[in-house]
């Protein structure tokens, strides 16, 4: 199996994991603020980073992906366009990643579900990872035992009273995230079981496993809070084990299943810059009907990619089928059949 692994992917994956380990070591004050009880979480995260970077690197080596990756950066970094591109990037980030408006255009229900699931999860990750890695930690204020001091990378970042709205909010932020995820999950699940279109194409491993994983992480997390708040810590260690188990499985699943789209999908931003360039430059006219149908840039890039994939759409007279527009292509099947049977009328 080791021999089948992609070398570039393995090298990049290992480099990223080592970088994370170094960041944990130095970020936690040479492990002074790292809690050894969290070693299982940390190991799972390091593995997940390896897997994600490995898969991303392998994915980038596919000819069409490599082409867009290269072109996307090329057009984005072009000096004359850079200031405009940065503005556009900010706008795209706000619309497509923060507000996810493209999902709203499909359905409001899906949009609400995805917003709750994605932001619930992302916010929870932004809180837990720095805590687990020892990048952020809290200490009781030596001057005032009722107050907490927060430290980020060893630097004092603020003090707040434990019994205050801010303290309450800080210590319950993961509960809010869990509630958001559970509500989002319920909405997503409703669609998955009732929509005939969704039920016919969904797969257990691709579409249900992620929902079940997020659900178990959120519910066991909430149970921990419930145990501390209302049950005097009843069953706490068992619940903590259950929670750790579900989080670790989720981390290990990250590179393989549906969650990989979190890392892959932002490639859409690169495509936007490609499309901008395509609009600015020459358009390609169909070799049959003469109507402009796409950018010359994309048509030529497609020809390159097709050649890399071992395809040959060229005719003996030099015409390339890639120069034929989709409308003419749709007529070709009918036209050739008619020609074969000698014109209109049927067999």
């Amino acid at each position, binding site marked *: 199996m080791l021999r089948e692994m992609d070398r570039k992917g393995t090298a990049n994956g290992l480099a990223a994991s080592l970088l994370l380990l170094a960041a944990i070591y130095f970020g936690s004050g040479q492990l002074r603020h790292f809690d050894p009880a969290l070693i299982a979480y940390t190991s799972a995260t390091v593995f997940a980073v390896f897997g994600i970077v490995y898969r991303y690197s392998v*994915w980038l080596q*596919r000819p*069409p*992906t490599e*082409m*867009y990756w290269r072109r996307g950066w090329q057009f984005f970094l072009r000096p004359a366009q850079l200031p405009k591109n940065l503005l556009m990037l900010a706008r795209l980030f706000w619309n497509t990643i923060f507000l996810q408006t*493209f999902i709203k*255009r*499909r359905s409001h229900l899906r949009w609400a579900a995805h917003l709750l699931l994605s932001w619930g999860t992302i916010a929870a990750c932004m809180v837990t990872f720095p805590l687990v890695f020892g990048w952020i930690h809290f200490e009781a204020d030596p001057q005032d035992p009722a107050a907490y001091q927060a430290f980020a990378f060893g630097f004092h970042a603020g003090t707040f009273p434990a019994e205050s709205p801010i303290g309450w909010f800080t210590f319950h932020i993961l509960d809010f995230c869990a509630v958001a995820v559970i509500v989002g999950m319920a909405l997503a699940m409703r669609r998955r079981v009732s929509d*005939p*279109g969704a039920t*016919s*194409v969904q797969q257990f491993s691709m579409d249900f496993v992620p929902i079940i994983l997020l659900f178990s992480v959120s519910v066991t997390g909430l149970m921990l809070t419930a145990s501390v708040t209302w049950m005097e810590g009843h069953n706490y260690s068992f619940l903590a084990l259950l929670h750790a188990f579900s989080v670790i499985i989720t981390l290990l699943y990250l590179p393989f299943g*549906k969650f990989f*789209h979190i890392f*892959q*999908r932002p*490639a*859409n931003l690169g*495509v936007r810059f*490609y499309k901008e360039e395509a609009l600015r430059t020459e358009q390609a006219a169909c070799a*049959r009907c003469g109507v402009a*149908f*796409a950018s010359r840039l*994309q*048509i030529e890039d*497609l020809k390159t*990619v097709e050649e890399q994939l071992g*395809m*040959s*759409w*060229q*005719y*003996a007279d030099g*015409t390339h*089928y*890639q120069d*034929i527009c*989709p*409308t*003419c*292509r*749709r*007529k*070709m*099947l*009918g*036209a*050739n*059949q*008619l*020609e*074969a*049977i*000698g*014109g*209109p*009328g*049927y*067999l």
Partner: protein
Amino acid sequence: MNSVFILDPARCIGCQACVHACGECGTHRGVSMIHLECMDRATTVQTTPQVCMHCENPTCAQVCPADAIKQTPDGVVQSSLKPRCIGCQNCVLACPFGVPKYDAGPDQMQKCDMCYDRTSVGKRPMCATVCPSEALYFGSMEEWRDRRQGTPVNTFRFGGQTVKTKVYTVMPARSERIDIRLTDIAGVKR
């Protein structure tokens, strides 16, 4: 799935029943995926329907940078996976039959998936269910052979490229392959 899909464009009467039925499909409600083209309005009334041919080695999937187009175990090429498709339109431009559609709103590709909600449970696709002239046929090969003439063919040649598809096209007897020539559509009128 023992049924086969057989396309016979010459039988198309341009009634648009397939276009409207397609929009009722559960996997892409309200949006029709089938294409119905007028061959050449100035010279002929001939129309031709185009469904996804469900290629064995789909070009659309090969040129997709996001790995968003997957095949079911029974060879049906699915519409783009929503979380993956990055809306680049490579598939739209590279499909030899001009099938995938790009929707700018959600920034996604969508295409005919042979009504997978229906065909996966033994029903006929919407278009073939309503087509009055059997330009779109879905059923057993035996039944088709009992009633119809010609040979269903599913190998195509575009320049140097051979494409094999799940969906058949009716050709004269003993044909083995359709060599797609960039034929002049106006020239087919008699």
